[in-house]
């Protein structure tokens, strides 16, 4: 193998598994250390830089970082990255004076955002401080998009939502409520805006066209519409027997909301076995804790109507087998009937743009999704950008935020006359963490403590009061333990080959057998003859240049390194050093980001 190019920030970025997996590349280990030091405000501001909604995301994020977390590879469970974010948001001081502000003197450029969901809000957040005049058109009378209309208050309290949205709006965003854009053509023709951002979401819930659908319409609800109607107080009860069709995250919110509106027997009906569910495991757990039953291998075939009223649903039952490769095959069994008073359909969402004319230069593909440049988010019409669920179909808040950042860079380039693809590449800082002979600027002592369990409000109480937040947050003791679980993956092992005397000290001390000094070879061959086999192909091998004494090479398998720094402590020549890596991302009008504090 060729020597690894550690000058490319991507190499070390990949080692910080959580940051790499986070769509917005939140600097997780740094904010966890700030929390450990009690610097909650700094931790909050650092978060806000990349993900903009730490309080909201600390409760609701899909957390792609957690399955990626290095801790899962040496311990049972990942660091509670998401709930620690909430700690920073809950315990911070007033940040009003520390937030970005918009200059009084505007830059003369006007940007329209359609929809006041997280994607548009991030565009406004990034452009307002640069002097842009941003106008948001919102169909509803409140901001937040699905965060407000669909995520139930028992998961995301309204005050948290309001506060973080207000941090953006109060920079002077011109937000127009109750203002659905009915024609993009006329908005563009008006010529009032230098750029337009479409952040209108994926607003249409999918239909289930089986017999009885029309006759029973009064008691069949489309999940996202029904949740919206609950959120705005138009619906406040449901029948006792409720069937939810579908088993994604929307289904989880529907069943738990039903439990609070009078549902007594609530069943979530899934077509496939559990390992194929779309819902996050933690959402399933929370639903089951509220006595929701999850029924697998049932496919709806007909709504049963008697005297013009829904009485239940017929299902085809299946027997599932999963082969060694994980492929599912299902054999039909009998048909069964489940009585129900109400049925909620939660089988997916899709984009819908009835208000975008098809002759204004914006191309759509065969699924009616706009054709976009994957980097710039520009549509086929110059100056019109898409982001969030509107761009790529239903995803989540953190992706919407990242799209917002990228679209803001594009809009800024567009307005400044810079080619959209001229985007500053990420940079990095590497600073030695050495403080003394064997002292480091981070805590390198591995703590075997297990993941802290979130406490939930008692069942009766949470069902009594709709908006009662279920999770109470970590106690100070839990925070103190959970922060210790982070392995500080950003404190990197950095190797200088010309210093190595091949004493083997680092190889011998490494607790997880990461290191090997051996003759070079091709990657596949090398992976098989290291101190321990390097079987996780997602994780890189570091390969040094030839070592001075024997021309062999130093190899590090990044997979299980716990960043204990012992290799560097035991190295007589400081050929290994622990260095803190800082990924420098660029945002609109700002080349690189520096640390919060």
């Amino acid at each position, binding site marked *: 193998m060729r020597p690894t190019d550690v000058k490319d920030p991507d190499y070390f970025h990949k080692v910080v598994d959580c940051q790499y997996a986070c769509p917005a590349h939140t600097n997780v280990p740094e904010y966890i250390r700030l929390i450990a030091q009690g610097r909650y405000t700094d931790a909050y501001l650092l978060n806000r830089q990349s993900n903009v909604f730490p309080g909201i995301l600390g409760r609701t994020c899909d957390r792609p970082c957690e399955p990626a977390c290095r801790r899962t*590879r*040496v*311990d049972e469970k990942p660091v509670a990255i998401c709930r620690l974010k909430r700690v920073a948001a809950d315990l911070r001081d007033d940040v009003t004076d520390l937030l970005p502000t918009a200059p009084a003197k505007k830059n003369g450029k006007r940007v329209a955002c359609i929809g006041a969901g997280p994607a548009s809000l991030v565009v406004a957040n990034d452009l307002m401080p640069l002097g842009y005049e941003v106008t948001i058109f919102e169909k509803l009378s409140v901001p937040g998009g699905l965060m407000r209309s669909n995520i139930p208050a028992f998961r995301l309290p309204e005050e948290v939502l309001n506060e973080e949205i207000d941090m953006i709006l109060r920079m002077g965003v011109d937000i127009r409520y109750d203002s659905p854009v009915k024609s993009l053509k006329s908005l563009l023709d008006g010529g009032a805006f230098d750029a337009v951002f479409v952040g209108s979401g994926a607003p249409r819930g999918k239909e289930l066209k089986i017999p009885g659908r029309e006759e029973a319409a009064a008691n069949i609800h489309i999940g996202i519409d029904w949740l919206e109607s609950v959120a705005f107080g138009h619906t406040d009860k449901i029948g006792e027997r409720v069937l939810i069709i579908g088993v994604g995250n929307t289904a989880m919110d529907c069943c738990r909301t039903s439990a609070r509106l009078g549902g007594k027997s609530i069943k979530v009906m899934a077509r496939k076995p559990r390992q194929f569910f779309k819902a996050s495991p933690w959402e399933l757990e929370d639903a089951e804790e509220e006595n929701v039953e999850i029924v697998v291998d049932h496919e709806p075939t007909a709504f049963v109507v008697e005297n013009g009223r829904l009485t239940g649903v017929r299902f085809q039952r299946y027997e599932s087998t999963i082969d060694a490769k994980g492929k599912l095959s299902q054999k039909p069994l009998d048909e069964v009937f489940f009585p129900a008073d109400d049925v909620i359909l939660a089988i997916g969402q899709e984009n819908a743009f009835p208000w975008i004319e098809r002759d204004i230069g914006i191309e759509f593909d065969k699924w009616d999704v706009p054709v976009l440049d994957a980097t710039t988010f520009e549509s086929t019409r110059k100056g019109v950008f898409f982001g969030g669920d509107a761009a790529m179909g239903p995803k989540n808040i953190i992706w919407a935020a990242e799209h917002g950042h990228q679209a803001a860079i594009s809009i800024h380039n567009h307005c400044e006359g810079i080619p959209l693809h001229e985007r500053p590449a990420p940079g990095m800082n590497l600073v030695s963490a050495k403080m003394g002979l*064997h*002292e480091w600027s981070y805590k*390198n*002592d*591995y703590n*075997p403590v297990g993941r802290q369990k979130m406490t939930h409000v008692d069942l009766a109480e949470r069902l009594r009061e709709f908006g009662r937040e279920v999770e109470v947050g970590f106690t100070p003791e839990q925070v103190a333990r959970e922060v210790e679980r982070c392995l500080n993956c950003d404190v990197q092992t950095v190797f200088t080959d010309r210093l190595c*005397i*091949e*004493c*083997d*000290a680092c190889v*011998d*001390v490494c*607790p*997880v*057998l990461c290191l090997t000094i051996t003759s070079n070879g091709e990657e596949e061959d090398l992976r098989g003859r290291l101190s*321990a*086999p390097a*079987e996780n192909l997602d994780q890189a091998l570091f390969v040094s240049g030839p070592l001075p*004494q*024997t021309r062999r090479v130093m190899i590090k398998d990044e997979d*299980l390194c*716990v960043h*204990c720094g*012992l290799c560097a*402590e*035991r*190295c*007589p*020549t400081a050929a290994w050093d622990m260095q803190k890596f800082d990924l420098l991302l660029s945002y609109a009008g700002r080349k690189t980001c520096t640390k919060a504090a």
Partner: protein
Amino acid sequence: MSYIRKPVARHPSLRANALGLTLRDYEGAMSTMCAGCGHDSITAAIVRAFHETDTPPYMVAKLSGIGCSSKTPTYFLSGAHGFNSAHGRMPAIATGAAAANRALTLIGVSGDGDSLSIGIGQMSHAIRRNVNMLYVLENNGVYGLTKGQFSASADPGSKSKRGEPNTQQSIDPVLLALSLGATFVARSFSGDKDQLVPILKAGLAHRGFALVDVVSPCVTFNDHDGSTKSYLYTREHQQAAIEMSFVPHREEIVAQYAPGTTREVAMHDGSLVRFSKVPDGYDPTDRRMVMDWLLEHQRSGAIPTGLLFLDPDANPEMHAASKTPEMPLTDMPYDKLCPGSAALDALQRGYR
């Protein structure tokens, strides 16, 4: 010195041995050696040898004298017995331990100072008696613990860290042991675990005194230009003359070798040492030949390494020679072990 404990996190592919223990179960406390010390590498090799031979830690006694090298038993097999003796006196303690409980596996760890200066008489007699133990001499050419004075193994002409040459002759523990009738004599290098680990395993299987002289650079006082015990010098002069593998008796012997290409020596416990490469005409069981060959080759400054001499039947092991019973003395009922003054009187009368 590291202040933290070695993380308990483990590699999931760690192999469990016949006792269900992984390599990590054979570790000891965190080392306090200087970073980069050859002794730490030898410790790691010892950990591997014990793991791979499925040795139960509680059946091992670790013995040592004084010196950096002699501190290292703390850093392996925390589940074993141990005794840290006065300077140079480890062989006497080991002899006593072997006499009292012959069921124990004994490992002595010593240094060139501990063994070749103050303890040379002790070591010589343990070899002569053929005490059943693995004796690892961690050889760095200096008294590391007392800040790098030349030891008795320093080569004439080799330079101290301050640049002064050594003017006295050196003692070669390998030749010394051969001349004293040792039955197992090896030399290796801390930086060559592929060679060292099989030697240690064979040494553990050997019934009798197994001397392993390991060149073990002292990074702090003897790793400079002009030293003949530095990493670089050893790498440039090491001559891995003899290649062997250790075949435990449990393992079915499947490989077929053309006659003449290898030589196998049966150990008393049923295991085998298989020599796969030796220099032309070299016979690892011929003491005189081996001594001649070493004198010849070492003259040029080469450092021949490997299991240089092995003859398990050359001399009886201490218990065999003194005809002690098979049962460890520690297991014997007290009245049998010490039959009392009447029995002593009777014995003494017999001599009158």
